[in-house]
């Protein structure tokens, strides 16, 4: 079984982001970039399936300028077999990303696509579902457990009421939630080995997808700040404030 794992390069989750002064976006120059954490979980899950001899090959795909090859290398260093770099200069919307991924799926013919439930930059939470729709495949979103058997994937999904279990016919798309696994750190010898694993570069413009943005970002701003609060000394005082000042209890 072959697994395709789409990953996105984003600002590292530990970095406090800064909105650009001209409100055109978020400062990315000289900022630490990493693999989207949900995608790290997706790579880990795919590699574990390979280690259990369920998967035979793990292919990682990422879109962007040449710097995304570094993100692909990070996935190769934890056990993915090879990478595909879709070369792209501008940002695109999730639908266009899903259409580009569909082209890769048609070429690679994986049995399973695993990706993060959302990227922590635009928080859209769309690409996996859209890819599944375009392919006419089933989808298992927000997975906290994944089991493969008899041509099916059984997935425990994290939903608002608790958990929901669904069974999907393969091929299918699975998106990862936080508790699916804890990604490993790459070992140094594997980082070295990853350097010799192949990455194929493809131009997004040559994949036959209309890349025009259909959602345009007009402005990016800082969120409204809350005014400073007061330090309370005793529980009695707190209860008094809540009852008589804030009037919420």
């Amino acid at each position, binding site marked *: 079984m072959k697994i395709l794992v789409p990953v996105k390069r984003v600002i590292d989750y530990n970095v406090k982001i800064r909105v650009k002064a001209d409100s055109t976006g978020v400062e990315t120059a000289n900022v630490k970039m990493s693999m989207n954490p949900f995608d790290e979980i997706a790579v880990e899950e795919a590699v574990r399936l390979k280690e259990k001899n369920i998967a035979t090959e793990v292919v990682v795909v990422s879109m962007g300028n040449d710097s995304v090859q570094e993100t692909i290398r990070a996935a190769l260093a934890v056990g993915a077999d090879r990478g595909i770099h879709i070369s792209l200069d501008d940002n695109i919307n999730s*639908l266009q990303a899903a259409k580009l991924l569909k082209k890769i799926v048609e070429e690679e013919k994986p049995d399973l696509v695993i990706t993060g439930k959302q990227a922590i930059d635009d928080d859209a939470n769309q690409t996996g*579902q859209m890819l599944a729709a375009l392919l006419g495949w089933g989808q298992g979103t927000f997975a906290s457990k994944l089991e493969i058997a008899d041509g099916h994937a059984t997935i425990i999904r994290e939903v608002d009421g608790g958990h929901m*279990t*669904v069974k999907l016919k393969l091929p299918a798309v699975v998106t990862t939630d936080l508790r699916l696994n804890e990604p490993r750190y790459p070992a140094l010898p594997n980082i070295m080995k990853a350097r010799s694993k192949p990455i194929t570069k493809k131009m997004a413009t040559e994949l036959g997808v209309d890349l025009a943005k259909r959602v345009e970002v007009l402005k990016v701003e800082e969120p409204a700040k809350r005014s400073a609060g007061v*330090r309370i000394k005793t529980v009695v005082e707190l209860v008094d404030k809540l009852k008589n000042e*804030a009037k919420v*209890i």
Partner: protein
Amino acid sequence: MSILVVADHDNAKLSKATLNVVSAAAQIGGGTTILVAGKNCAAVAKEAAQVQGVEKVLLADNEVYENFLAENMAALVADLGKNYSHIATAATSTGKDFMPRVAALLDVSQVSEIITVISPDIFRRPIYAGNAIETVQAKDAIKVLTVRQTAFDAATATGGNATIENVSGKGDSGLSQFVSKDAAKADKVELTSARVVVSGGRGLGSKENFALIEKLAAKLGAAIGASRAAVDAGYISNDAQVGQTGKIVAPELYIAVGISGAIQHLAGMKDSKVIVAINKDENSPIFEIANYWLVGDLFEILPELTSLV
């Protein structure tokens, strides 16, 4: 302009989140139709017909919609929705699951988790876990939206008199199959619609100690929340997690106990009206957004607070 709102419900009752989406639809302007898809959910359709500002209710009552599987829901919503200018639903785990699939089937983009309607095609939404807000313009003919429920007031649930029309879809996709779902506790206050939320973090130290949070919540009639650290440590189940990757809440009163205030937690609760933070570390980031904060031992503070409220 015409807006199709896909109802969020449990086959018995309409969720409050749907009322928030109807408000967002009213701000977009134009007639609002609610689609209720489920099994044996005629009662939900009747409820939806009472909501003020709703012109029509479409009822798709079929066992294939019982568990709101995305493959079946999306096929139905895309088929009905192609005749509308906007399709909107609440950004619940169900809405987030099927709505992007609808957008892709219609070959249009989706705008996720809108918090402001500026015009019928311009919306504001949070990015980077709420650390920035972007204003976007949707250029497709059909605008597919998910709505952050805490950002919009609920529409009035009664007084409306919409007509109910039965519709049917394509049936089962055969792609996915429902296996099981955790049974929700009947007495539990729902986190995303609660007036008061009491949340515990790693500071509680154990699952047994988390009972202190439950006692205070019970006294206040509050929902129970938790930080990701508390969930990961196994003090409470994942559905209580408040944060960018968990539930987004905005109650009148949010009490954070033993929670230091990681960015991703703050993103899930910083729009609460009044925030109380209790922590032993006076440098906790959560104090920066709290209206009232108390530095001290939560094992002394919580029992006293529970006895006084």
